[in-house]
């Protein structure tokens, strides 16, 4: 499935509906669908919020496909070059008072996937995420 998404936060609603339909059609469990929604939400929200700084309307794409026991997600945007994997990870052992706000989104993406890769190709940020459909424990 390929989705064209505008850089408008209201698009997230439609993205949720489409991803849920995809999960349903591919017999992906509700639990795994939740993980996939978090991954796509966090990354798409980043693109919508930060990739374009000219105030104009832009479109980026979200591709999702099932390959046997893996789900492959790809986000492509022609925004500012940005490798989210370079962000420092939050300290999940910090106390309430010292815990920093933010940085969790990418951390969630890494935690919930088997593999995340970033590349800048032909003027586009390309993120590829692979999620295992095998249920743990």
């Amino acid at each position, binding site marked *: 499935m390929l989705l064209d998404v505008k850089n408008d*936060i*209201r698009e*997230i*609603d439609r993205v*949720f509906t489409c991803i849920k339909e995809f999960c349903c059609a591919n017999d992906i469990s509700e*639990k795994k669908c*939740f993980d996939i*929604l*978090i991954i796509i*939400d*966090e990354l798409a*929200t980043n693109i*919508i*919020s930060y990739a374009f700084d000219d105030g104009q309307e832009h479109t980026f794409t979200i591709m999702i496909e099932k390959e046997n026991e893996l789900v492959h997600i790809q986000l492509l945007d022609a925004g500012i070059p940005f490798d989210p994997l370079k962000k420092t990870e*939050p*300290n*999940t*052992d*910090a*106390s*309430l*008072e010292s*815990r920093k*706000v*933010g940085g*969790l*989104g990418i*951390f*969630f993406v890494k*935690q*919930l996937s088997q593999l995340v890769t970033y590349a800048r190709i032909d003027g586009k940020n390309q993120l590829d995420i692979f999620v295992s459909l095998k249920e743990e424990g």
Partner: protein
Amino acid sequence: MEITVKKDSDITIVYPVGRIDTSTAKNFEEGIMKVIQDSQQVIISFSNISYISSAGLRVILVAGKKISSMKGQLVLTEMSEKIHDVFKMSGFDKILKIYPTFSEARGVFDK
């Protein structure tokens, strides 16, 4: 985002409804901050929450810090398994009070 607020003596119980993501987090934050102005004994029930992203966790963390600095208490309760998983993944289960049932959450304030 729809937020229902109930009072039980000096405790305020907050029931957000739906999804807490970037598109609803601002609204959720405004609602919570308004509650904290009047009451620092707060329970947030997740019984009507189907989804939370890092944007939602950010609001919970900000609220937790604020309430803690005012010597109040924030207790979270009635999370679905997946919502609880997100809190565990973030390490927030170690810094915030989370109880499975409402009566356990309510009991914290009787001590």
